[in-house]
């Protein structure tokens, strides 16, 4: 095992210079063309709403769950969508557990904006009882391995998980909502 301790790894000046000079002449360190993508593989888990995306060495897992909650006052007939990204030590040895770094928040926001602005999820269909009960969809993104380009991988994982998610059936009985 290497003598370098896990939290002291830094990119050397030589390595940085090499990567920059190689890029200016159009060579990437793993031999790809500037516009070439790494191999993408999407796998689905046993349950609805779980996906695992591998983009080269980057590994991201997405899980989708839904809960019945009270809606916001100003959006009484729309459901909510929220993303929870957690960077753990698993992906990168420099992450501290418990503290949400800037990049994690930014990544969560990018995925959130992408799904929300493009209306990928029809929030009005998530309404059960206007003003009282709506579905709140929570997407958990677990970054397992950071091999670069987390934004793409996280977006694909979130979408893939949403595609396989099936909302539980619920029917209204009398005045209360009953879940089936």
């Amino acid at each position, binding site marked *: 095992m290497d003598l370098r301790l896990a939290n002291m790894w830094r990119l050397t000046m030589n390595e940085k210079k090499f990567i920059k000079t190689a890029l200016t002449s159009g060579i990437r360190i793993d031999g790809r063309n500037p516009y070439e993508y790494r191999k993408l593989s999407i796998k689905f888990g046993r349950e609805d709403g779980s996906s695992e995306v591998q983009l080269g060495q980057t590994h991201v*897992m997405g899980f989708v769950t839904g809960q019945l909650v009270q809606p916001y006052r100003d959006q009484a007939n729309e459901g909510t969508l929220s993303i929870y990204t957690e960077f753990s*030590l698993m992906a990168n040895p420099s992450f501290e557990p418990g503290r949400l770094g800037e990049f994690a928040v930014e990544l969560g926001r990018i995925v959130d904006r992408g799904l929300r602005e493009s209306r990928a999820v029809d929030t009005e269909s998530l309404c059960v009882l206007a003003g009282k009960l709506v579905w709140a969809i929570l997407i958990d993104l677990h970054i397992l391995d950071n091999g670069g380009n987390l934004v793409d991988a996280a977006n694909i994982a979130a979408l893939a998980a949403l595609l396989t998610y099936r909302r539980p059936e619920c029917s209204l009985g009398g005045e209360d909502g009953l879940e089936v």
Partner: protein
Amino acid sequence: MEVDRADGRNPNQLRPLACSCSILHRAHGSASWSQGDTKVLAAVYGPKAGTKKNENPEKASIEVIWKPRTGQIGKPEKEYEIILKRTLQSICILTINPNTTTSVIIQVVHDDGALLPCAINAACAALVDAGIPMKHLAVAICCCSAESGYCILDPTKLEEQKMKAFAYLVFPNSILSVLPEGSSLVQGEPMEHGIITSVTHGAMSVDDYFHCLERGRAASAKLSDFLRRSLQSKLPGDLSKAG
């Protein structure tokens, strides 16, 4: 006593096991362990400089982070972290790298019963993959005890919820000895007869508990074999793998 289990196994039968190592590239060691539908991913980061405030700086310390499938980290996760930490501390050789912290991160992929044993097995395989020095390996198993006193091994989530009580037991790996005398003796008894960790939920009588212990120990031999085979298959060519 015959009992019908939902998936047709008999009381002593374990679910199909699968283990794969070195699946993550950034982590120093990683392993994924699945027992039937329960799947856990473990990653290990090798010694980092420095220990936390309330740890003993004369020894290496192990830090465990348990990440549930969905939701925030709460009390059950903290409990699992502590149990896992104590178990791993007793099998790793802590005096080799003093004043360092080794981090073990557990990610639950799917939970279908016997989650903690699955995590312990995965953590053990990941530690071997990372090359952390250990005294011996550990195998973990879950035994449930039902109303009428019979006990079943490796329950699924439904079975776990129906049972009166269940216990997670961790045994040391059975030793494959090259010496003709057999396994080393610790205080006059062979080492396989020891137990590392035992966590019980629910109420069971003392006899039931000992019964579970016996059954668990017998099954741990099968688990040890499986662990040994899956780890051995990656030994020969991997000597050049640096941290």
